[in-house]
């Protein structure tokens, strides 16, 4: 069971150039940190896929194991774990997020 969840997450993360695990969805985020992360990603105008962890307790726990990271939201770009709201905000402010996104979509 647990392995199925990890496999599902692995597939989502690898299939989507930008994958965001969040509370709620981009239209109705259920947490300020998730909302802020959505805003940042939307500001780049790139497509991204989201998974609402509140809809699936197994994903909610599984994603923390997958990345060994205790909090949600979690952002993955090109299959790689980037960080949560704080790190994504900081990369955004430093201008380091755009090159990551660019590299992912140019592939």
């Amino acid at each position, binding site marked *: 069971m647990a392995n199925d969840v990890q496999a599902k997450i692995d597939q989502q993360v690898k299939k989507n150039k930008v994958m965001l695990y969040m509370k709620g969805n981009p239209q109705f985020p259920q*947490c300020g*940190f998730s909302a802020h992360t959505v805003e940042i990603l939307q500001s780049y105008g790139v497509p991204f896929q989201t998974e609402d962890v509140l809809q699936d307790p197994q994903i909610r726990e599984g994603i*923390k194991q997958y990345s*060994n*990271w*205790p*909090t949600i939201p979690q952002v993955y770009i090109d299959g790689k*774990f*980037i*960080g*949560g*709201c*704080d*790190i994504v905000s*900081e*990369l955004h402010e430093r201008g380091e997020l755009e090159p990551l996104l660019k590299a992912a979509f140019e592939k």
Partner: protein
Amino acid sequence: MSIDEIKATLEKALPGAMVEVRDLTGGGDHFQVVVVSASFAGKGLLDQHQMVYGPLREAMGSEQIHALALKTFTPEQWERYGT
């Protein structure tokens, strides 16, 4: 978890670090934490944040800490940030 408990836990895990904790809502579960530590030097943000989350993992997992806004700095970065 109280501000003092978080501060003590992190200072123990990262000796010599400067730790500042604020309770954002007064509810004792939404915190803002700033950590300045020489041990962050040469590490990426992801690793730096892991070093702070590590000692708090249990409290975060049990929802004793619901939200934690985190900023990490090396002493050099902190110097520049403050001026």
